[in-house]
């Protein structure tokens, strides 16, 4: 039940984004990926569910190579992985409840009653009760984000990929989401990858962290290893002091 990202390279035209990035989210842990804006964090997690294919290297989920899967195998992988998009990516032709129900509709073993129950439950967890019939366009940014989280957890996946789940939320809601991430791990044993810029959140949810820098893993380690790191690139990022990097250069 682990996610192994193994030396992946990815370029878009002349833009070489990933240059041999390796990192592992071990079974039942939450891995936080840090990195500057545009460093390729979103690109990295899209590889985990096969939305992007690496130019080189491979991604393995539960020991299975994502690159070698046929479409049916990809579907069964995706049913096990919840994906929280950076900008929510809600279906704007559907109500909030229908958005959350979408993944469940693809699961034959979930009956209609159970689906409704799970939708209610997922919306309750993200504190969106009463918003079932709203259109996504009628939600605030933070509400959209939470609806996106509800959609990802409704299928009770074994893995969860969160792309900046707390960006743009108020401090209270941010803490609620962090607690939710921890609950998913503790109660359901979810293996998670969280992308965030928010160091407070990062240290609240991380079992381990990894920093993506110039297409590679700059540092992978425990929160303490990060706090005590002497690397100016890492310190500049977690302390929010760009001058540290300039001094190092």
């Amino acid at each position, binding site marked *: 039940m682990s996610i192994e990202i193994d030396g992946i390279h990815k370029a878009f035209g002349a833009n070489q984004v990933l240059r041999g990035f390796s990192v592992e989210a071990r079974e039942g842990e939450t891995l936080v990926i840090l990195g500057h804006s545009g460093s390729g964090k979103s690109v990295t997690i*899209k590889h985990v*569910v*096969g*939305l992007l294919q690496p130019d080189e290297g491979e991604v393995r989920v539960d020991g299975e190579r994502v690159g070698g899967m046929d*479409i049916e195998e990809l*579907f*069964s992988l*995706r*049913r096990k*992985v*919840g*994906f929280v*998009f950076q*900008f929510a*990516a*809600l*279906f*704007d*032709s559907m109500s909030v409840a229908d958005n959350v129900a*979408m*993944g469940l509709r*693809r699961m034959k073993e979930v009956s209609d009653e159970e689906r409704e129950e799970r939708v209610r439950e997922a919306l309750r967890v993200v504190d969106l009760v009463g918003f079932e019939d709203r259109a996504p366009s009628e939600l605030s940014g933070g509400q959209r984000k939470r609806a996106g989280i509800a*959609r990802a957890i409704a*299928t009770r996946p074994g893995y969860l990929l969160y792309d900046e789940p707390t960006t743009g939320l108020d401090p209270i809601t941010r803490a609620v989401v962090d607690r939710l991430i921890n609950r998913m791990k503790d109660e359901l044993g979810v293996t998670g990858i969280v992308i965030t810029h928010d160091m407070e959140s990062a240290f609240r949810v991380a079992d381990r962290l990894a920093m993506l820098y110039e297409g590679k893993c700059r540092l992978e380690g425990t929160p303490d290893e990060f706090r005590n790191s002497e690397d100016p690139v890492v310190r500049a990022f977690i302390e929010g002091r760009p001058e540290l990097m300039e001094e190092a250069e």
Partner: protein
Amino acid sequence: MTRTLLAPVRALGRGTRVFTLAVGSWGSLVVDAVRALRWVQIWAPLTLRQMTRIGVDSVPIALFIAAFTGIVLALQASYTFTGAIPLYFVGVLVGKTMMLELGPVLTGLALSGRVGANISAEIGTMRVTEQIDALETLAYPPVAYLVVPRVIAGTIMFPLVTALAIAMGIVAGWITAIQLLELSTPEFVNGLKLFFLPFDVTYALIKATSFGFVVTSIGCHFGFNTKGGAEGVGRSTTGAVVASSMVILVLDAFWAVLLL
């Protein structure tokens, strides 16, 4: 010197390459759509709704265009004939022209604006806001979910809308003839029947079916390949309308060569 002389050649070469690539990627979307037919439980429930959106909702505009075309055809026919040709030939001209050419083509062009633009804007927006990625992460095949229902609906509904448009055009021509042209109903109907072949209807429906297929599949193709935010959505919408209008005109000539 040689550079400036070669510039147009080079531009032509580049244009040809871009065109070939576009046709190739449209073709591969069509192949994907055929493969996606196996996910019946995904596309079937969505097809009815698309038939309403693409077909039923397009009826007013199609009828509007056809009505005025019918009126103008009748008046222009009588103006052209000016006593040299018996007036009941107005019926011939209105009937034949509506069926063979203007019914299918004008309806096709109008719907390429309405339906093609709508499809590419909707799918393009879904692309740039990552809704298509989201579909994939929820284990939906996007082609089965988005493309198949629209293409099936268009291919079925365009001929139906076109048939209504043809009927409307003929009725409008008939009313014009009896009201403004001193023609009686039996004369007009005789004219209609005079050179009528059942094949005319088949021909009109074959054309309309092919227009329905290209307008919807080209709209989906441009939508799927949208890049770059709202501006990109605008670009692909325009692209879809221009490309499908051109393809309609080329196909129109193609069917004339092949079937007449």
